[in-house]
């Protein structure tokens, strides 16, 4: 009631504070999720962090139309997803996969085992990149645990059943390709 009464007296400074409070809350709530979304595409911490920052810059730019956004969480994820895909076009896949594979293999006991594991991961990541675009995107987005099928469908602009089918096909194709590679060796 008090806020309604004082509504007409909102100054620019008060508005600015309001935006800051909202922004801080948004960053607090969504930055980790957005980071993971961006990281699934870019596989580099620094790049993913830059994407999250760009997402909130967009939020500031569109702050006047924020009230019209139906689902803030999906909207933010979609922005992060698109910005990450856009940024990924400027990065060589080998560049981002090498350090990621090495960081994952770091848990291995011996150095030799660590090297072998990193090598295997790089092969899998390369095969993931070779998947059809729609399947690859669904597979990568499915890695973000916080996102359900409905949200993934909304982000990718597909139906839930299509997302499920694409995910199944992606995993099957990836497995088959890796087995074929193993057989060749």
């Amino acid at each position: 009631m008090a806020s309604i009464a004082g509504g007409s007296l909102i100054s620019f400074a008060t508005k600015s504070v309001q935006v800051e409070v909202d922004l801080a809350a948004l960053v607090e709530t969504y930055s980790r999720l957005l980071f993971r979304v961006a990281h699934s595409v870019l596989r580099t911490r620094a790049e993913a962090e830059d994407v999250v920052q760009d997402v909130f810059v967009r939020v500031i730019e569109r702050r006047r139309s924020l009230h019209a956004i139906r689902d803030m969480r999906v909207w933010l994820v979609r922005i992060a997803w698109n910005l990450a895909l856009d940024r990924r076009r400027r990065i060589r896949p080998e560049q981002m996969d090498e350090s990621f594979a090495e960081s994952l293999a770091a848990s291995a006991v011996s150095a030799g085992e660590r090297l072998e594991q990193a090598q295997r991961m790089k092969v899998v990541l390369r095969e993931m990149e070779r998947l059809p675009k729609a399947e690859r995107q669904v597979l990568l987005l499915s890695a973000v645990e916080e996102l359900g099928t409905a949200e993934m469908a909304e982000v990718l602009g597909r139906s839930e059943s299509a997302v499920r089918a694409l995910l199944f096909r992606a995993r099957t194709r990836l497995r088959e390709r890796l087995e074929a590679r193993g057989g060749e060796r």
Partner: protein
Amino acid sequence: MRNSEETIEMIMAGLRDAEASPGMEGRILASVEARASERRVATPRWAWAMAMAGVAAALLFIAILSIHRHGQPPAQAQQHVLPAETARDAQPATLLSQKPIEFNKAVAPRRTGARIRSEEAVLLSDLHTPSHPAPEAPLTQEEKLLLRVVHKGDPQVIAMLDPEERARQEAKSEAEFQKFVEQSGKDVHESDQTTE
């Protein structure tokens, strides 16, 4: 088979468990606010530039409009109001023979579908009224001298062209001279006698 599946799962787990470096939220917040404040400062400059561009465009539009209105009168109208002196400069032979200036009585083309402005309406009405030649201009000094040079039929000059008449005139003139000389000599002699 097992190895591939395990590796895929490891990668998916790695992507799932990816953690941002500590303090990411603070860094993002500070950076976004810095960018936002930069934008706030930059906006007036941008607005000023836009305003200046708008004013320049408006001035240009007005200039083009005024040139279009006043800078290009119809060709027929220009011909109609041609001053007599200008016409004389262009065609001296016509003037020397004292012929009146001929005016082009071309009719202005009809402008269908276009709104005729008031100025154009005046010009069109001028074009449609029957035209009259301009009043005869007074002769210049040079023209007067030229006329005097080429003037013919002076009786004295014509008479002098006849040899008999010329001889008679010369004899008459000679006689008048002799008479004058004799008269002068007689006058001098008489005055000498009076003095003595």
